[in-house]
């Protein structure tokens, strides 16, 4: 039984990381209708920035964290204006190809600049364990979950109570009407991309201590994030968070209790989740089913 709780807590920790990245995906999809295949690579790139600040320039963790978030925001904002905005109205294929181009560019750039060596990444949380009865709870997992929940809360407050947040919601819901009311939709969408990039950076920086820093570290996490977003509802931020946590816990439990799956088949399980959800209930748990009138 204690093993069960341990798996659950560990699952919540990794699930928080998936939730953060999934939230980024949902944010971008809600705002611009694009599935950003490059979210993981952008997150990885910004994590390298943090690593550089801490390792090469001797910064301490939290200031580096903050600066990295700012960098991520600018990066996301810039990417939208330069790469995505010109092709927003083109076909789906065009936009997908653009984001794939970004995947290649960021992955390659990270390899070029920092080499493909696997590196250790510092964690703000001590590598220790709390004991609650029989269960060993890693402080890393709790800290990760905490950071993500705080961030989600801040983001929610931002959307709910600020003018920019309102503008963002309006632009996502009805761009034309928003323009008529005076909202600068283009800038709003770019801000959305910036915020999403920040969420991705958080996911990357929280994942790196465990999975270690290398240019390909976010690829598997991206798939898990996709599964979480699809499960929760690709247009629902709440769904992204809930989906991420469910997926994290679920994957851990399945991996622990089904020998057949073990550690190797976690990724295919996520793939299965994606396929099943898209085929059975494409809107996910919290999404609203879309009906088309023909």
């Amino acid at each position, binding site marked *: 039984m204690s093993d069960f709780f341990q798996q659950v807590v560990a699952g919540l920790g990794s699930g928080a990381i998936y939730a953060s990245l999934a939230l980024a995906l949902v944010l971008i999809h809600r705002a611009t209708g694009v599935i950003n295949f490059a979210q993981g690579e952008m997150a990885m790139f910004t994590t390298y920035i943090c690593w550089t600040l801490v390792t090469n320039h001797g910064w301490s963790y939290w200031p580096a964290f903050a600066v990295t978030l700012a960098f991520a925001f600018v990066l996301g904002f810039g990417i939208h204006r330069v790469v995505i905005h010109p092709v927003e109205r083109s076909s789906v294929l065009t936009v997908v190809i653009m984001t794939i181009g970004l995947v290649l560019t960021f992955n*390659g750039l990270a*390899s070029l600049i920092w080499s493909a060596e696997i590196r250790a990444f510092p964690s703000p949380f001590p590598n220790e364990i709390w004991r609650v009865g029989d269960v060993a709870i890693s402080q890393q997992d709790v800290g990760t979950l905490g950071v993500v929940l705080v961030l989600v809360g801040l983001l929610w407050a931002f959307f709910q109570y600020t003018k920019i947040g309102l503008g963002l919601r309006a632009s996502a819901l009805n761009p034309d009407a928003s323009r008529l009311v005076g909202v600068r939709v283009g800038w709003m969408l770019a801000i959305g991309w910036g915020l999403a990039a920040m969420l991705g950076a958080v996911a990357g920086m929280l994942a790196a201590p465990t999975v270690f820093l290398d240019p390909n570290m976010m690829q598997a996490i991206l798939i898990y994030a996709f599964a979480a977003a699809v499960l929760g509802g690709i247009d629902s931020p709440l769904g992204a968070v809930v989906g991420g946590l469910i997926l994290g816990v679920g994957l851990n439990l399945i991996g622990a209790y089904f020998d057949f799956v073990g550690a190797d088949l976690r990724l295919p399980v996520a793939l299965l989740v994606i396929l099943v959800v898209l085929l059975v209930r494409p809107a996910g748990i919290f999404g609203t089913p879309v009906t088309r009138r023909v």
Partner: protein
Amino acid sequence: MRGRRELGIVLFFAAAAVVFVLPRFLSDFRAQQFAYVAIYFIALIGLNLLTGITGQISLGHGAFMLIGGYTTAILISDQEVPLELFGHQFSNDMRDIWTIPLAGLLAGIIGFLFGFPALRLSGLYLALATFAVAVAAPAFVRRFDALTGGGPGINFFDVEGRTRSETITDPLTFETKEAGVDILGLTIPTFNEWLYYLCWTLALVLFAGAWLLLRGRFGRTLRAIRDSELAASSAGVNLARYKTLAFGISAFYAGIAGSLLAIATTFVNPDTFPITLSIYLLVGVVVGGLGSLWPLVFGAVFIHFMQIEWAQRVESVIPDFVPIIGAIDTDAPGAPAVAFGVVLILIMLLFPGGAAGLVRSVRSLGARGYDRLGRRSG
């Protein structure tokens, strides 16, 4: 129109003649490189059939190549299982060649079956699903290691039945040289040249097949599906049938390409078909031109040579302030990826038609009237 078709056929045979004569002028190493170009060409035709012509985005064609490659590897290396189809037993000589159609067939069937769930996914979600398939495929391979050799993969360099050239030692000078590959009574001097002929023969045959397939009703139907599923369906097109067929044929091509790739490298492991392969195939299709056929050669050339030869040239383009962040290693695997990515983005922004688009623009320069790029005659 008839004149153009005849011209096309003439050009095809001219190109085929060039292809067959080329190895006389190429070094052995180059012959191998061009063999790889043929392999990519086949895969690109398959992918373009699905994505450029039928409009179904597939980011997972590397997985179909994986199926083809592993089929060949498993069939070749498992010497106890005789290669047998409908009671006819194939001899062990040139066993690897016999596995090629089987690999393509298996990949094609799996592709066809994948087409069914894919019917319910559109656009972005299909891209997402195929992307996930491509990332998960190597994991599958690793897991079922009894069949696939797991992480280390299957190495069939030494397996009997693999077509190869022997190395012989000249008794007088004690030099070793390749004795050549014997096939159908002819002797081809080196393994690489044989590989070149194998790949290009298949590439030309498959290209002609695709061209014939797409000229008529079938091609028009697929293009109709791409342009508007709603309109096509209203006109009586059975979407399910054509989409699954497109998936199947496309996967067949990819499977053959994967099989040839395995034969060329004489081993397969989960890292032979990573997600980057699927992505590079997409790059190749975009560079060649979505919806085109023969310009895909440019795409294939681009994919292959960019990975190998041109990465070094990226060095001179990087500005001087970048070293602040870290030391740049331009020999790192990253360089081609950046080049690919930037090229992809630039092409979509500036030349969405790819090489085919450029060809079209060049062609229309000579035209008069309203043909010329849609504007009035000049």
